[in-house]
Every structure is written in C-alpha cells, then in structure tokens.
C-alpha cells in the first residue's frame, strides 16, 4: 500500500500525501487533476472511478473541494484523491467524464448538491433536484428543513396553492433513543427537543 504512495510522490511532484485512516490518499491541485487521472488510469491500473463527492469545508479557504475514489481492479486497491476548487464564488474543477464514464452522473450529483461546477462536463445539469431549483442543499449554510420556494410544476402550484416549504422540524432532527431502551417500541425515533409538537407551539414563539 505504502509503495503506491511513494511511487506517486516520486513520479509526480505536484502530489502531496493526505492523512487517511484507511486507504492511501493524496492531494492534487485542480489544474493537474486531469493529467493525474490519466496517468492513474493508463499507467497505474486504476481502471475504475467509484465515487465523486463534493465537499463544503465551510470556514476554510478554499471552501469547496472534490474527493475521488479510484479502484485498482487487478490488485484490489483503493486510492483517494482530493482536490480543491480555487475560487470560492464560482468553484470549478475539471471534469473526468471523458476519462471515466462513471464520473458523468457522479459529477452531476456533486454539482446538484454542493454547487461545484465541472469544466468540460458534457451535460452538467441537476440530477436529483429539479431544474430551476435555486439552492444547493448540501452547502453548510443551507438549513436541513429547506428554504421556501416555488413548486417545480406551475400548474400544480396554481391548482393547489402548494409551495416548497421549510419542513416543520418539531424539535428535530429525529434520532432513535437506544440507552436503557430494551424494546423496539420504546426506542421509536424522537426529537431532541420534546417541548414542542404539532399541537404545542415552540416556547417563545407565537403559535
């Protein structure tokens, strides 16, 4: 395992090792990412791209990054490659969709959820949320309950008056209590703050 890291470090000067609890991991600058992925695929046998995750590092600079997991089919090895998007206002990293076809949908999901754009992607549009949704839901400033906005279908909204609402959290998020609950029916999911429900308004708020 270690000799892969050493090989990569010796061969490519822009690669820096990355702390990892499991698989070997490296940092690569965004402008060398395509070059590095091409080498990984053609020379080092990492034939498969398993996952592309967009990351929001919140307060850190640069704020947005992308983490890739590559797989060596013959030797059954994983390799984690992390990169950072230099511009916080418009995070862009190069697309790997033409090198690894599996990157296509994964990059669309990362774009949809975190808002990292992938330069050179053949069809970079939302994959989970609907077209025209104004937010990126997995960014740190986005609340879990969501933000009120228009329903994707104008005719349904006109007929029913329904909107995309901020979900009522009712003291949530919900979790299953496990300590000294020996029966499943006692360990039903419940909210941290049980003082307010659908019937009782939140303390200090008008119902």
């Amino acid at each position: 395992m270690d000799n892969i890291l050493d090989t990569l470090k010796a061969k490519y000067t822009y690669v820096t090792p990355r702390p990892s609890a499991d698989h070997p991991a490296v940092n690569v600058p965004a402008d060398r990412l395509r070059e590095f992925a091409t080498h990984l695929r053609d020379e080092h046998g990492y034939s498969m791209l398993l996952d592309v995750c967009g990351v929001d590092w919140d307060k850190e600079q640069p704020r947005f990054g992308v983490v890739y997991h590559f797989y060596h089919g013959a030797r059954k090895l994983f390799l984690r490659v992390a990169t950072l998007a230099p511009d916080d206002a418009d995070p862009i990293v190069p697309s790997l969709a033409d090198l690894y076809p599996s990157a296509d949908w994964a990059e669309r999901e990362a774009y949809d959820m975190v808002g990292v754009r992938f330069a050179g992607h053949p069809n970079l549009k939302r994959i989970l949320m609907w077209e025209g949704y104004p937010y990126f839901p997995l960014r740190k400033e986005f609340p879990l309950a969501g933000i009120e906005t228009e329903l994707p279908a104008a005719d349904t909204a006109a007929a029913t008056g329904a909107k995309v609402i901020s979900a009522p959290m009712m003291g949530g998020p919900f979790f299953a209590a496990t300590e000294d609950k020996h029966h499943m029916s006692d360990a039903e999911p419940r909210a941290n703050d049980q003082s307010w429900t659908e019937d009782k308004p939140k303390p200090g708020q008008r119902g």
Partner: protein
Amino acid sequence: MVSSTEFAYNSKVEGEIVVSQADAVVNWVRRHSVWPMPMGLACCAIELMASGGARFDISRFGMEVMRFSPRQSDCMIVAGTVTYKMAEVVRRIYEQMAAPKWVVAMGACASTGGMYRSYAVLQGVDRIVPVDIYISGCPPRPEALLDGMMLLQEKIRKEPGATGLFRPRPNEPVVVGAK
C-alpha cells in the same frame, strides 16, 4: 347449516323485486368495486403488493383490480414518500382519474412527510390532493391498509350518492388508529 334468521333477499317472500334507494344502490356498487390506482413510491408499495397477494387478499373487498391507468381507477393509494419533484406527477394522475374518486394516504410519508423533514419531500400528500383516509405506520401492515380501505368503504356508503357526483367534495379525513 340452518340459520333461523334471514339476512339476505328472499325471493319467496319478496318476489323478484328489491325496494331500495337509488343512492344506496349506487353507493353499494361503488363500495364493492373500488379499483385502486397503486401510486407506489417507496417501501409502502411493498406492503400494498402484499395486500394483493393470497395471504391478505384485498380481492375480498372487491379491490384486487389494481389499475395502472388513472382513467380506469377510482381510488389512488399513495403508498410512499412524495418528493416535490414527484408531486406534479401525483397531482396530474389524480386529475386524470374519473370522478367519483378517492385518495388514501398510506403510511407516515404520504400522510405528513413522515421522517423526511427535508428540503426535498412534500410534507403530506394532502397539500396537493384531497385525502379521504390517512393510514398510520411506517410502513403500515397489510391489515392496516385493509382496515383503512374498509373505512373508505364505510365513507362511500354514507356519501350522498349520484346527486353529489359533480359537486365539490368536502375533504373529511378519517385517521386509522386514532383514538
């Protein structure tokens, strides 16, 4: 087995005529031929399928004819999580169903959004379609679904029949399992 009480129509006593009200007959027919539109969106659909199987046998209530075309069905069983992206599809299918039509919200997600207090999930299908029966459970067992469908039958029995066909239908929810 000999029974001393006559419950059913007896041709020897009543001849070949049954006297009833038109509304009662219409409602009796509707009640026993509810054709569901299986709007299976998540794991509740598995329980819905189990209800159609031999063990639970929804056909005992005349509801085994699951129609995948809204134009041939009476009752939309919303079985599962309705996302905002799917909401327009649910609404459009509901609109294509011929009146009289009913909606059953099966399970926690369809009734209230359930555990998905989230930016992506519609917080209850009653925001876009009028729901007649809410069934609790995550997912509800087939018995709970059958209980809900029997409550729906009871609701249809009390409806004003043909006279109310083209009037806007009041939305009076019945909650299965409510005390």
